[in-house]
């Protein structure tokens, strides 16, 4: 029950905030943060139990027929991530309240933010593949509305679309991967799948499953070549960037890889794809970060770097690597969320985020400065901070990865060097040096804007000094779940003089050098072209892909939806003939041969009328003559109904024919008098189609009538029409009583059609309205493509 509450209280809050924020006003952030704080406290009470090896599973049947449960599973790994999400969430709520104080859509913002948090908690706790997938998609959706929060800016809208399309595409791949997993393991329950050992690895679907799951994880967690959406997502208000795009949402992909690590990891495919792409992403983005001067740009690329690093560690898959991965998730969340909030506080104070234009802010923002220094030192991996512990573990992991020790160690070293330089840019540039006219008037940020970074700084510092506090309660259960076996990791600040320490020293030295040489590096040609190809280049590639997709859609629409009624009809009729004809060709025709004996003379007359009317349409030129000819066929068919005992049908047919002729004449009069007499070729073609359809229907009827006729329905209605529906006219009792729901559906369709016709005819009359409409509808496409 508590777990259900933990997941869904965020959704409840999301429903409430739009209405209550007016009342909560300036204190909104503090008040709403009670919810994530409460969930954090609740989850924290679970820590001791989970550390003792206990797991909890709650399940409610959702779609029992498909084995879809709304089920949640608390083990070391899910608790680890859930605590991170709600813990950081608490700080973000407080921060957002201060950052967006007085924003006219503050209620909406908190609604989206709570929805996101709840989706994320649901995702990490989910124990059913479908529950998992739905929460996964919900996080994408929440991210979409949060990135596009400033929806009056074109750049925000584009970024939101981009993030949505990229992550949803990956999400679909993930769904297929999940379905294959279900095929292999025979269950949708994640905790059961994790127990299947080598079942997936030994199955023929293994490669497909890995590729699909990786596609979902890589798009979500911004791996090469999909990372282009994440820097653009920085269009979101800074609290969103701090929460979604550093600490949590982007980690959803990491969580996918981690969750299924026990059953997927191991084979070379996994090691080289996950490890390799991770390393590549890490290396590229670390150096791309140095191309930017906007604090959020630098933060975005260093976030991608961190995600690449985590992915790489999951790919390596050794115990040290996985331990490093978990530790670095925390390290990164603490310093990156802190630095994002610092960047936002600076932006809030001086309305500038460009590190080359900032300086000397330490006096105006002392608390923020303090938090930034600690976060920066942790990011750079300076001893006595949590980041140092993380970096030592990373080097240890790559150094002990036998198959490609040099490759991964070199990549990690180079990436970390750039990271040190980025840390310098983010902390030294804005706060040190002299104030300039921009920063001289910086106002002191209020407590909501620095409390979050300060708390995170305390964590970075405290866990840097005493990392072993994490060993038993957090790290051991999480690592055990990640590896699928019991393990007892330990963390220490001092591992003796070893290779990892040496690499740390080299990293810091080279990092400082890189920081010193930042300007020349940033403007040098090779790095410029790196950015041009793999930064904006990939982003432009996305545009080309979307343009291509739209062009394809347009091309096929032009063919299929060409606006010519005659082509639609021809397409429908020919398709039907081909489909039914194929059926006859495949199963053979069984039925009587057409026989013309015993045809009464008046039946001959009628047939001649009907066929003559239809044929007339092929040969007549004048429109009114055409309509009349068609009318003859229609009335002839009505007479057939009358003769064979269907008076209601006949009456309807007569009336419809009459009204149709009137409508036709009305419409024909409005048509321009073009000389559109069809050529002989067209007439032959139309005649051929008509003959084919007629022949097909005749054959079909003969075949159907050949089957024994079961009149159960007829006798049912005969028996009950009067006793149940109080009517003797069976047709009518069917229409208004037995199948009244169908009739209701039909008249609603007529209603909609009536209003549709009305609107179309009115629209045409006012050209201004048409112009308005097109100017409204086109930007939707531009948003996606431009």
């Amino acid at each position: 029950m508590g777990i259900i509450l933990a997941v869904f209280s965020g959704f409840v809050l999301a429903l409430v905030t739009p209405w209550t924020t007016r009342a909560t006003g300036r204190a909104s952030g503090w008040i709403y943060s009670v919810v994530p704080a409460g969930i954090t406290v609740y989850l924290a009470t679970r820590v001791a139990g989970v550390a003792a090896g206990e797991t909890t599973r709650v399940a409610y049947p959702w779609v029992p027929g498909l084995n879809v449960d709304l089920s949640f599973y608390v083990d070391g790994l899910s608790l680890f991530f859930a605590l991170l999400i709600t813990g950081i969430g608490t700080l973000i709520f407080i921060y957002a309240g201060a950052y967006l104080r007085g924003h006219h859509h503050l209620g909406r913002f908190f609604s989206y933010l709570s929805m996101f948090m709840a989706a994320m908690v649901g995702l990490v706790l989910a124990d059913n593949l479908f529950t998992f997938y739905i929460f996964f998609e919900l996080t994408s959706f929440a991210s979409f509305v949060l990135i596009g929060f400033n929806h009056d800016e074109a750049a925000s809208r584009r970024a939101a679309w981009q993030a949505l399309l990229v992550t949803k595409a990956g999400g679909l791949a993930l769904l297929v991967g999940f379905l294959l997993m279900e095929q292999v393991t025979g269950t949708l329950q994640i905790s059961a799948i994790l127990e299947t050992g080598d079942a997936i690895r030994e199955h023929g679907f293994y490669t497909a499953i890995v590729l699909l799951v990786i596609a979902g994880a890589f798009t979500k967690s911004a791996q090469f070549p999909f990372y282009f959406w994440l820097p653009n997502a920085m269009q979101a208000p800074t609290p969103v960037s701090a929460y979604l795009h550093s600490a949590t949402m982007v980690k959803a992909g990491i969580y996918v890889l981690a969750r299924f690590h026990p059953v997927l990891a191991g084979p070379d495919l996994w090691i080289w794809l996950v490890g390799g792409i991770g390393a590549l992403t890490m290396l590229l983005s670390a150096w791309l970060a140095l191309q930017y001067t906007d604090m959020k740009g630098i933060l975005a690329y260093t976030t991608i770097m961190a995600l690449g690093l985590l992915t790489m560690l999951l790919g390596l898959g050794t115990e040290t690597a996985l331990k490093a991965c978990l530790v670095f998730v925390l390290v990164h969340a603490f310093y990156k969320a802190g630095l994002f909030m610092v960047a936002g506080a600076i932006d809030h104070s001086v309305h500038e985020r460009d590190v080359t234009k900032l300086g000397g802010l330490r006096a105006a923002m002392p608390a923020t400065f303090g938090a930034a220094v600690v976060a920066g030192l942790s990011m750079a991996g300076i001893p006595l901070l949590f980041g140092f512990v993380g970096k030592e573990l990373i080097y240890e992991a790559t150094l002990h990865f036998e198959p490609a020790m040099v490759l991964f160690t070199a990549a990690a070293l180079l990436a970390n060097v750039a990271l040190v330089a980025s840390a310098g840019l983010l902390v030294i540039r804005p706060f040190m040096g002299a104030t300039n006219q921009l920063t001289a008037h910086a106002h002191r940020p209020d407590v909501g804007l620095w409390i979050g970074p300060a708390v995170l700084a305390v964590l970075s510092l405290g866990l840097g000094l005493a990392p072993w506090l994490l060993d038993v309660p957090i790290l051991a259960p999480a690592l055990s779940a990640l590896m699928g076996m019991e393990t007892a990791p330990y963390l220490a600040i001092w591992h003796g003089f070893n290779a990892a320490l040496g690499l740390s020293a080299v990293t810091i030295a080279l990092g400082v050098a890189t920081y010193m040489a930042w300007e020349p590096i940033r403007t040098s040609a090779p790095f410029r072209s790196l950015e041009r190809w793999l930064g904006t280049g990939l982003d432009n590639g996305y545009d080309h892909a979307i343009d291509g997709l739209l062009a394809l859609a347009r091309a096929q629409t032009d063919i299929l939806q060409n606006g010519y009624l005659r082509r639609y009809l021809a397409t429908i009729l020919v398709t039907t003939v081909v489909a039914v004809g194929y059926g006859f060709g495949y199963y053979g025709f069984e039925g009587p041969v057409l026989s013309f004996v015993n045809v009464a003379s008046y039946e001959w007359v009628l047939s001649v009328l009907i066929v003559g009317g239809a044929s007339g349409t092929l040969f007549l030129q004048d429109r009114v003559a055409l309509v009349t000819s068609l009318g003859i066929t229609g009335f002839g068919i009505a007479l057939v109904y009358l003769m064979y005992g269907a008076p209601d049908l006949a009456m309807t047919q007569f009336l419809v024919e009459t009204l149709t002729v009137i409508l036709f004449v009305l419409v024909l009069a409005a048509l321009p008098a073009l000389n559109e007499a069809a050529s002989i070729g067209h007439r032959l073609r139309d005649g051929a189609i008509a003959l084919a359809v007629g022949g097909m229907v005749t054959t079909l009827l003969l075949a159907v009538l050949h089957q024994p006729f079961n009149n159960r329905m007829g006798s049912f209605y005969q028996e009950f029409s009067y006793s149940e529906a109080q009517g003797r006219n069976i047709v009518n009792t069917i229409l208004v009583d037995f199948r009244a729901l169908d009739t209701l559906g039909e008249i609603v369709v007529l209603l909609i059609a009536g209003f549709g016709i009305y609107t179309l005819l009115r629209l045409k009359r006012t050209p201004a309205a048409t112009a308005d409409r097109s100017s409204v509808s086109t930007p939707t496409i531009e948003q996606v493509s431009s």
Partner: protein
Amino acid sequence: MKVSLILRTAARLLVPLMILFSVFLMLRGHNESGGGFIGGLVGASGFALYAMAYGTDASRKALQVDPRTLMTVGVGLALLSALIPVATGDAFFQGLWTELPGGVKVGTPILFDIGVYLLVVGMALVVIYELDDDGLSLFPRNGVSTPYVVGETEPSPSEPTGS
């Protein structure tokens, strides 16, 4: 060209009869041939005939209600007939019948049929009226017909062109 006197005179006589007949068709439908759909078509034809003789505006005036309102009310009545049994605790669309003094039976299916009737009248007339307003020539304007003549290719001057 003036509208044919025969048509105008006949319409005066025929239209009320057609409308009466349409209601008759609708009501008898439960036991004999007829019903809301057929009745509705006859009713709509009546107003269409009136429009041919006297013009759309006169026909609209005779109808008194906007045909769009008729459509909406029709679907509303049909829905109501489905909801009345729900209110009394029966199933959605359960037919409820009661006998009035004099042996006339009324029930929710009749209400449903009336809904269908109104919808069909409204829908058909929306299309006919709107097409005529769209710059057509079949129906007379100001007592003068602008009929479509077989073989005529010039649009008549009174029509807005290029619309």
